[in-house]
């Protein structure tokens, strides 16, 4: 198994998030990966913060979306709820993308995914047949469970390393070269964290465990720049 090439691993945020939300494809792969013995697993404060931020951002976006639905149905009576819902969805995505213009597609995926899955409930809210705050409580509960799981993973399955916040300037040439591969800010910072942990733990190469296709695509370039092996759980 390729994962065995390195006995020391650094876990990327998408692997952790997939695990804590029980994601279909990732879940079995993540869960299977975390079941494997004989690996030393590290991650960093930055990865933890990234996971926490992704979970809570998604929660907020959904709350903002259903708040708009709630406010809209207070204002007027509708004849075409599905069409209204679609307009509110577009409007919410466009509002949120003012802050997340580089992640707009992901914001859209999250809200569309939710809107499709819960269309019946959302229309019921619009019709006044489902109490909005009861539905909101379900959403909040789900995200709270995920953040609880996140704490448990970082407490029990990973060692969370504190890496210097200014690694981009300390490892400036590595930072610049990683930028040239086309990766974006947070990915680069997390890769530099793994490089730093590899150095601190005196391993020749640390396994960087990720599902991120953007990173996997430029795997060989990354491996030339920093002392990691990019690995994807089977």
């Amino acid at each position: 198994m390729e994962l065995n090439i390195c006995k020391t691993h650094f876990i990327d945020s998408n692997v952790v998030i997939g695990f804590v939300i029980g994601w279909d494809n990732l879940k079995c792969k993540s869960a299977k990966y975390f079941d494997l013995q004989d690996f030393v697993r590290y991650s960093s404060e930055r990865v933890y913060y990234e996971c926490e931020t992704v979970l809570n951002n998604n929660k907020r976006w959904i709350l903002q979306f259903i708040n708009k639905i709630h406010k809209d149905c207070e204002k007027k009576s509708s004849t075409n709820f599905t069409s209204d819902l679609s307009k509110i969805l577009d409007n919410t995505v466009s509002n949120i993308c003012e802050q997340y213009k580089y992640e707009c597609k992901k914001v859209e995926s999250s809200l569309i995914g939710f809107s499709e899955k819960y269309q019946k409930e959302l229309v019921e809210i619009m019709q006044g047949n489902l109490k909005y705050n009861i539905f909101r409580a379900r959403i909040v509960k789900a995200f709270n469970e995920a953040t609880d799981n996140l704490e448990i993973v970082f407490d029990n399955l990973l060692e969370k390393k504190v890496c210097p916040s200014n690694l981009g300037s300390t490892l400036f040439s590595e930072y610049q070269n990683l930028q040239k591969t086309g990766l974006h800010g947070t990915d680069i910072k997390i890769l530099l964290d793994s490089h730093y942990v590899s150095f601190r733990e005196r391993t020749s190469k640390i396994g960087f465990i990720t599902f991120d296709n953007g990173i996997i695509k430029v795997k060989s370039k990354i491996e030339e720049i920093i002392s990691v092996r990019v690995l994807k759980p089977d």
Partner: protein
Amino acid sequence: MTNALKFVDELVLTIFEEAEFQSTMEVTLFPKRYIHKILFKLTNENKDDSILFDSVPFYWYNHGPFSETVAKSLDKLLELNILHIHETDDDSKFYTLKKKVKNLNQIEDYKDYISSLIKKFGVLESDKLVMDVYYKDKPYDFIPAYKKEFLEPIEKKLKVINNEEDFYDIISLSNLIDNCYNCEEKLPFEPIYKGFNEQFSIFSSILDKLYEEIDFNRFIITFNAIDEFWYTFAQALRITQHHDFYSNKLDRWTSFYYRKLKESKGTIKNLKEVERTTRHSKLKFTTSSSEILLSTVGKYISD
């Protein structure tokens, strides 16, 4: 400082004179916020009047709309012995009119409007005026939701809580957390609030967990954090909601906001330490929660 009264000084004095004229009290005490809010109403409801709008420039901040020009005018009128200031035992400050000034001839056009505002919001009803400004003139729904329905009600309740037993009787933790989510869903969308919004969403999750079970002492720690989050928000608020007159202050305000935002990260870290005592130890996946997470975060990470 010149003794000559400016346009804004005359507007301020008109409020005092009109309110005294309408009042049956022997002495009328004017809270500072009353003067600011009446003048805010006057300018905000007459935005097309550029002379007025530009002479009394406002920005939204910690206590709602505030004008440095009005603050300076009040100081000037105190120095000129036209106004007098009274301090109460609880450090509240009130102004009184010490002597009337004749010939306020720059503000003739606004006298009737000010008079009608004072008829609507008497000086004894300054709370009503403040609420009206917060609910009708707010730039974001988040403002009244946080300040008037979340922060201040807790503040008021804390003043009458003397012991642990009072705390459980008076404070409803489930209502509080509901109010907190009411605020979260109303957070503004402008780019500068991104960092604040992200921290707020983490903050609300932590509060939710803490409020499952909390004692009075730990509750006070959370209240201080709630108060601090409002102050951090107010730093961003004045950056997005100000008259052009304050544009030269933007750099300073922006760096102050980001400094406060950094401090809020520390506050969250400290709250997590409080939270640690109530932490669970096993991973939990309930079906209904998993479905919600898969339809949202699952799509987000698979994109």
